[in-house]
Each structure stands twice: as structure tokens, then as C-alpha cells.
């Protein structure tokens, strides 16, 4: 996909690769291989919009998020923020950019220090970046608490005194403190109850409108991603296999993996559930230490041809698709094509 660094683009990610070395145990820790967590990923996050990133466990979506936030160094490639390359910067040089990119994590219990008061947790960013102190800091923290729907009088309470949904609001307030331009949300609602999920999703969408925030929204729940995203990227084994506006990716998916993922998502509607034909994928996700040759999805793909195991397909716009909709597949799914082979009656 082409990268255009215009004023509408906040973050560009170009050919980003992240390998983790696999070492032997013992004194001499020889490197015996690499986990290919993120492999040659390119995309951009538009200003004020939401990019949804979906994929199963081990697809590399959280690693990618940490690479963009600068929490872990990348192996190769380039991450740029408003046109300035930020990957490979020293800690000191990175500092002003850290204010612009914040994260919200999945587990509202693990992400907050249980022995510190909520006011201090939310106020940390002000202290670290030296933007507000004393009474001014308290005022700003309470303003934030109110903004995310917490009672500002609970300033001195501990995280344990809050419910899961409220804790996630604390995480949101902390991320918001320095008025960032990008918030990376890594599974922000998957640990919450259904009725609470909707509260947090609405809050995130209000904040986006009020502050013009961009989101990189990572989740495994496809309906949640569809609800919040403008653009959606699908990851499989460290690579983006399909990327485009959400209506195109959900409505006319071209990659067989995307179609399989969509067909497997549970629908909270008995009639849809009964009439749907599932594409049952055979086998399991291969090891990212030794990914399959050619297209990484070919061992499980219902459409695989000999070519797929030899040549890796590029992420490109397929014939007849919109210029914003790219797919990495030699034999993309055609409209009306039915990949569902196994019905309910057969043992998966």
C-alpha cells in the first residue's frame, strides 16, 4: 500500500519488523532462532480517526502497538509521527513524542498500582513531564476524572475501591492527561462486562470527538472493532493480510483468512447463528519462530494453490477493489464465493 505523508496522516509505519531472539538456556545463551512477531508491516493512522487492528492470539498486534508507542525497539523499518521518524530515537529525543502517544491496557486490575491513590496515578504524567504541580495538578486531575465519568471527590481512593469499568476509566484519564494526539488501546474492553463495555466504548468515542484524538484500537472482538473503527487491518502471523475501510473489509472481505475470521465470530442473534455457514479452518496457527514459506496462511487456507507455498503475496489493491482496500493474497475471494465446506453435522 502506498504511504502518503500528508497533513491528514498522524503516524506512518513503514516496513516495520520486530524479531525476538530465541536463546538456549544456560551460561552461553546462543541465539538459535527468532520469533517473527511483526514482519514487514506498513500502514498509516489518519488524524482524528480510528484504525482497528484485529487478529488472533500471537498474530503480533500487541507487539506492533508497543513498537509504535516506542516501548520496545524495532528490528528494522521506520515509524514516523507527523512526518518525523521516531523509531531509533534516544530516550531523551523520544521524550516529547511520548506525550503525544499514550496507551490504555487490557487489564484494569494489573495496570494500576494498588498501593497508590487514584489522584496520584492520574497525576503522574504531569509530574513526569513537569507540566503541573501542587494545587494546579490536583485541579487538572479532578477535571480529568470528571471528564471520564468518575466522581472527582474520589481523588484519594485506592484502585481497589473501584469496579472494573471505573478502573478502566482511571486508565483512560491517565492516558488523556497530557492531551496526546494518539491513544493506543490494547484490548481496552475485553476484560469488562457487556453492559460496562458499552459505557467505555461510548466514552472513547466522545473523547475522540472532543479532543480530535486518533486511536489505534486493538481487539479480538470483531463487532467491537467494527463499531469503533474507520479503517480495519487484519493481522495473521506478524503480517497484515487485509486492510481497508471497515465496510469493505467486513462487507466484502477478499482474504480467505478474513472471511474465515468473520464467519467464526459469534453473533448475538439466534437466526443469524443458525443460518450462518462457518469456514472451519484446519490445523492450528503455525509457530512464528519458523513461519511457513510463501503465504503464511497457505497451510490452513481452503483456496491454497502450489504458488501460495512458494511466493509471498504482496499487500496490494486487487482488481475491482477500491483504492483504499488492499489484500495480500494470490487468489482473493470473489464476491459470492462460498468457502464454507464443513457444516454442523460434521465433526470439526
Amino acid at each position, binding site marked *: 500500500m502506498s504511504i502518503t505523508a500528508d497533513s491528514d496522516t498522524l503516524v506512518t509505519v513503514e516496513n516495520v519488523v520486530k524479531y525476538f531472539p530465541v536463546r538456549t538456556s544456560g551460561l552461553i545463551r546462543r541465539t538459535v532462532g527468532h520469533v517473527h512477531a511483526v514482519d514487514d508491516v506498513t500502514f498509516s493512522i489518519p488524524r482524528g480517526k480510528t484504525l482497528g487492528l484485529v487478529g488472533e492470539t500471537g498474530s503480533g498486534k500487541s507487539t506492533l502497538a508497543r513498537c509504535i508507542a516506542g516501548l520496545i525497539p524495532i528490528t528494522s523499518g521506520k515509524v514516523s509521527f507527523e512526518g518525523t521518524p521516531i523509531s531509533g530515537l534516544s530516550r531523551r529525543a523520544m521524550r516529547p513524542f511520548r506525550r503525544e502517544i499514550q496507551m490504555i491496557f487490557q487489564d484494569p486490575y494489573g495496570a494500576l498500582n494498588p498501593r497508590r491513590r487514584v489522584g496520584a496515578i492520574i497525576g503522574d504524567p504531569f509530574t513526569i513531564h513537569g507540566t503541573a504541580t501542587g494545587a494546579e495538578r490536583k485541579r487538572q486531575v479532578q477535571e480529568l476524572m470528571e471528564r471520564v465519568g468518575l466522581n472527582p471527590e474520589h481523588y484519594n481512593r485506592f484502585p481497589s475501591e473501584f469496579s472494573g469499568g471505573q478502573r478502566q476509566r482511571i486508565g483512560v484519564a491517565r492516558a488523556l492527561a497530557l492531551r496526546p494526539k494518539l491513544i493506543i488501546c490494547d484490548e481496552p474492553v475485553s476484560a469488562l462486562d457487556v453492559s460496562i*463495555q*458499552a459505557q467505555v466504548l461510548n466514552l472513547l468515542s466522545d473523547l475522540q470527538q472532543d479532543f480530535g484524538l486518533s486511536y489505534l484500537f486493538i481487539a479480538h472482538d470483531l463487532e467491537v472493532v*467494527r463499531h469503533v473503527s474507520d479503517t480495519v487491518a487484519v493481522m495473521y502471523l506478524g503480517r497484515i493480510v487485509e486492510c481497508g475501510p471497515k465496510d469493505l473489509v467486513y462487507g466484502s472481505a477478499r482474504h480467505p483468512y478474513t472471511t474465515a475470521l468473520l464467519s467464526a465470530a*459469534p453473533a*448475538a442473534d439466534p437466526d443469524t447463528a443458525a443460518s450462518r455457514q462457518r469456514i472451519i479452518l484446519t490445523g492450528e496457527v503455525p509457530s512464528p519462530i519458523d513461519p511457513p514459506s510463501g503465504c503464511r496462511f497457505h497451510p490452513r487456507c481452503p483456496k491454497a494453490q502450489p504458488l501460495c507455498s512458494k511466493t509471498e503475496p504482496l499487500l496490494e489493491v486487487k482488481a475491482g477493489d477500491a483504492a483504499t482496500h488492499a489484500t495480500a493474497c494470490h487468489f482473493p475471494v470473489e464476491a459470492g464465493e462460498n468457502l464454507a465446506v464443513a457444516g*454442523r453435522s460434521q465433526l*470439526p
Partner: protein
Amino acid sequence: MSLLEVTDLAVSFSTADGVVRAVRGVSFAVDAGQTLGIVGESGSGKTVLTQTLLGLTPGAHVSGQASFEGTDLLQLSEDQMRQVRGARIAVIFQDPLTSLHPLYRVGWQIAEIIRAHEKSVSKKEAADRSVDLLRKVGIPRPEQRVTDYPHQFSGGMRQRVMIAMALALSPQLIIADEPTTALDATVQAQILDLLLHLQMESNTALIMITHDLGVVADIADDVMVMYAGRAAEKAPKRDIFYSPHHPYTKGLLESIPSSSAAVERLRPIPGSPPSLINLPSGCKFHPRCGYVLDRCLIEEPGLRPVTQDGYHSSACWLPVQAAGLGDQAEELREKTVQEGRGEAAAEVFEAEVAGVIEPDGTVTGVVEPDGSVTG
């Protein structure tokens, strides 16, 4: 008679903070070959309910009856319970990694269950049966995998091992407690298909505990929605999804993002579930309900039939005709609220809208006539 008939089950725990009333009078029945879905948020009592049936809640105060094949499970001694648990009623838990022993080979673990219950079975026979079971749940190369340790299996395969263990003694009833919550969507689909397939094959009854309405829509026959330790609504699956009566069920359905309403703003249920130590008065859902009547503040409604045939019942004071997601039902609800909401309920409702009501039902602020809030 049903395979399992639970009547007025109540479970509470004494803690330093007070009495936790986890389950407060729940009745339901499951027939052979049937799937009952129990839906609820964390703290609704769904897990305590089923663990109590299996005698897994030591120290709890339990009352009520749970008749399984004619015997009351709640009256069994620990020895008698051991004959039932695992053999006639099997359980599948959410996290297969913590449910399997990390230091024993999976084949040994399955064989041990068989030999613990069927003393006459030789080691060799038990080992052969575990290979067959692994094959039955769709694990490739079972002859080799049987000697692997749990950590050598992926999450989905581990859950298949758990299912193989649950099937080992051909139980009459399987209780699955969030069996697919930790799994990816494509693997979840495989596991649900497997459970359904095995159930059809052996006519086993299945209780599926989940917070995921998608799972229920997929595999349940009947659904029980739990809130604060009680059944809020109980009905055949289609009634729950297409004509819910209880405002909580309706709220749950409306708060999940779905493709049909992709652009709309989500409509969450305000507030959060109540503390089970300090429950609100009257209907336990009233602090979060959009249709509060005066009556709801004082009197807790019991389950009563909504449909003629009696299969669909709901614990709500709204008239029985007020079931459904359509405009007609909504009009009736609004009308009832106008007639049945005096000052007391109106105050609660406004406080809730203004966000000055705590999850336990206590009001922390006062709504002024002009709509402003003072605390």
C-alpha cells in the same frame, strides 16, 4: 421428570465484611439432550450456582433442592458426591491450563479419572480408552499426543483435552463454565461445534455458563438470565433474543455492538452490578433500570409467566404484554412508567440519569428541580 431439577436454591457466604448472598432462590430444570444457557455478568451468581450443585462451595450456607436423577445433590455426603462428580455430572472450566496438572501426561490424567471411578478397568484398558477419547474430540495423532504434557498443547487443544476428560465416564450432564472465553474466535467456533456434536451423539444435557450472548445464541435451547443472584428472565432462546421482557435482558442486548446498528451510539446500562453484601431494596435492578415504578423500590418481583404456555417468565413488574424490542412494547413500557411512577421512583430515576446513584443503590446527590445536581 427432568434430569436435573433445581428448586429455590439459595447460597450465601459469611465473610468479614458481611453475608455475601451469591444465589437467592433460583429454580430451573434441564432435560437430557438439552442445552441450558446461563447468562450473567460477573457477580451474578452463575458460577456459584453450578459449583454448589457439585458440592464445590465448602463453608457456604445452602438451602433448596437439586434433584438429579431422583436424588437430592445437596443432601449427598462427600463420598456419595464423589461418585456423581466427574462420572455422572462432568465440568469443563474456563482455563484449561490451570485445570490440568502440569506435571502429568494428559493420557495419564484421563486414565486416572477412569480408574478412580471404574475400579475393574486395567491400566492398559484405561490408556487405550484415553487414546480413543482424544480421537473423539478431534486431536490429531492421538496415539502420540497421549504422552504429551499439557504445556505441549495449544489453548484450543487443551480445551479439547478437558472435554475428553469430561466425556471419559459418559456423564448424563456436562456443566461448561465459560469454556471458550479464553479462546480465539476461530477456535471457539471449533469447540462449540464439537460440544454440540458430542451432545447430539450421546444425548447429554449441557449447562453452558457464559457472559457471551453470541455463544448462547449459537448453542442454547433455553436461556436463563441472572442478575444479582436471581433469575431475571427465563425463556426459550428465541424469546430471550427477540422478545425480551426484563429491562436487564433488553439492556444487555442493546449494549452489544452489532452489525445492524453499526453507526448508532451504543446504549449501555448505566451504573454497575450491585454489591452482593449490600443489595438495594426492592427489585435489585432498579438503580440501573430505565422503567422504575414505585413498586420496584419496595417489593422484589418473582419470576412470573409472560407467555400463555408459561415457558417464558420474567421477574419484573412491567405488564406481560411489555415484552419485545419493538415500538409497541416500548410505548406500553413508557405508559406504565407514567402511571406507576410516583415521586419516589421519579427521584430515583432522575438521580440515576444524573449519575449520582452508587452501584449499591445509595443516592449520593440530590437532583434539583432545574436538573442540576448537588451532592
